[in-house]
């Protein structure tokens, strides 16, 4: 599915300094019953965000109006658990375009890259700095520069570089997905299939 191109994102950020945020928290299984990709943003962090009677939980960060923005800053080992791409869809559909963490679970990171959410892995020290800056001033802006592969705390100018494969970077910059690429090499795939052992 096509997504918006990603280039330079300048935004305030929402802090969630909890470790091992798993996919069942990002989107509980009972909200995976759709056959179309609609409405997932409403159920992002459903059980942390809402009481059983659907009233908002006041102490959860997404319900705190002083925090907003297109960047979600999470704790270590963000996105562990299930392969459900719905978790990444929820993040995107809620309005986040970038997740920052000092460590990402593998499948979640992959899913994000496939749907246009940029996972930015920073050092534990820089992660701490970002959290401290946002808690000190919720209007703190971050700049995520994909062409330069940098993330900057704009108030102080402190920055760090992050990793992304040149292939995925090119995809994100242009809003391409892997299916376009795979379709283009189909004859090669069909020929390859003929010589497999199984």
């Amino acid at each position: 599915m096509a997504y918006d191109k990603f280039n330079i994102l300048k935004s305030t950020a929402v802090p969630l300094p909890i470790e091992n945020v798993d996919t069942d928290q990002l989107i509980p299984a009972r909200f995976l019953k759709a056959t179309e990709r609609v409405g997932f943003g409403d159920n992002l962090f459903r059980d942390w965000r809402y009481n059983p009677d659907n009233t908002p939980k006041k102490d959860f960060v997404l319900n705190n109006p002083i925090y907003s923005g297109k960047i979600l800053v999470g704790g270590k080992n963000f996105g562990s658990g299930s392969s459900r791409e719905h978790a990444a869809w929820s993040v995107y559909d809620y309005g986040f375009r970038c997740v920052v963490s000092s460590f990402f679970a593998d499948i979640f990171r992959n899913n994000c890259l496939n749907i246009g959410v940029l996972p930015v892995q920073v050092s534990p020290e820089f992660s701490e700095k970002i959290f401290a800056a946002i808690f000190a001033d919720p209007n703190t802006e971050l700049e995520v520069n994909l062409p330069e592969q940098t993330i900057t705390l704009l108030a102080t100018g402190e920055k760090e570089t992050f990793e992304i494969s040149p292939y995925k970077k090119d995809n994100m910059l242009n809003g391409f997905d892997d299916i376009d690429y795979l379709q283009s090499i189909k004859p090669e795939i069909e020929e390859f299939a003929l010589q497999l052992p199984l």
Partner: protein
Amino acid sequence: MSKTLFDKVWDTHVVRKIEGGPDVLFIDRHLIHEVTSPVAFLGLKSRGIKVLYPERTFATADHNTPTINQHLPVADPLSANQLKALESNSNEYGISHWGLGHQKNGIVHVVGPEYGITQPGATIVCGDSHTSTHGAFGAIAFGIGTSEVEMVLSTQCIMQPKPKKMRINVNGKLGVGVTPKDVALFIISQLTTSGATGYFVEYAGDVFENMTMEGRMTVCNLSIEMGARGGMIAPDETTIEYVKGREFSPKGEAWDKALAYYKTLKTDADAVFDKELTFDGSSIEPMITYGTNPGMGMGISHDIPDAAHAEGGAATYAKSLGYMGFAEGESMIGKKIDFVFVGSCTNGRIEDFRAFTSIVKGRHKADDVTVWLVPGSHIVEAQIKEEGLLDILTEAGFELRQPGCSACLAMNDDKIPAGKYAVSTSNRNFEGRQGPGSRTMLASPLVAAAAAVTGVVTDPRTLIEELV
């Protein structure tokens, strides 16, 4: 150059390497279910493309199917709609569909091996993280997202950077009451829930060599719970004996060719891993989890660690214990439980029901405990009956449900109520995993059985009469 088992299977399936990018990996067998496939089919439709090799994809419904009265229409309209979508999409694109009521219907990672879809040295994917189960056969098997499901349907390939390689060796004799589930939970407790992220694991050593295929599947199934993309075990006679003659296994000449390939599937003696760990099997106890991720597990006779000895930050640890209603330093033994769940792609196979039955035989279900016994497939269900296990279970006050994922992720009606405690043989104890507010303790079928008959967390070794 020397290669690991993982290298051999991976390299055999690389269509092309992209400079500065992932490998294009050919997928031999693709499994789909109702939850993670509908949007992939929508993608195919919107792009106007076909399924390239429909005979390489197999569909089964499992995640939100009911586990009682499967002959009746599915009551939940959203679940019914997903099941219908899987059927119509499969029919439209010529994919084998084993829907609710079909004799081959069951949990995708249970029926795949049972029907010989799973083969040594194959690449196998499914939109489900526990696809790692199939690594028990020496396959490269891992979970993928829905975008990748669409890639496999349309081109039989996905694009993946090659993971790093880790070998985990466990040698020694396992103690009485220690099952493959305990070995896996022990390893995860040592590595933590993210300790193998970025790696593909090979399990080696006599503990795994001595396991049945069912036991190996339980171990490989849980690889994802320490962050690994997958885990695998080199195929041996046990493996070949299991796959031979199954419905979708190669036959005749194709079998001979496949067998020659299977024999090549082992790590070369001097191959190098990025990381290698070794554990002593004889030191492993029956395990139980006390927190909200599978890495928060310990030997059942231990006390809950204090925050200073736990992995991760104190705030996260306190949140986790707070959710469970437990405190640092407490013993788990004797804690009251409300539910027991035996089933899932982790422990829903015949061996698991044999283990459970071995403890409850001649005893009776505790009055205030609700027990859900859910076989992984109709084959498992039939075996339970044929082996006489059902009679023993009935005598002890238990009932058997029908195959499906059930309370593992509570997408159907099998939900643990808020605040209630469940001893579960499934794979995740995340907050709310088994129902909003549910509290899960992961354990083996033996620990589950001990809890089911006593109503409290109990060391199963105290109920095993013939201690060797």
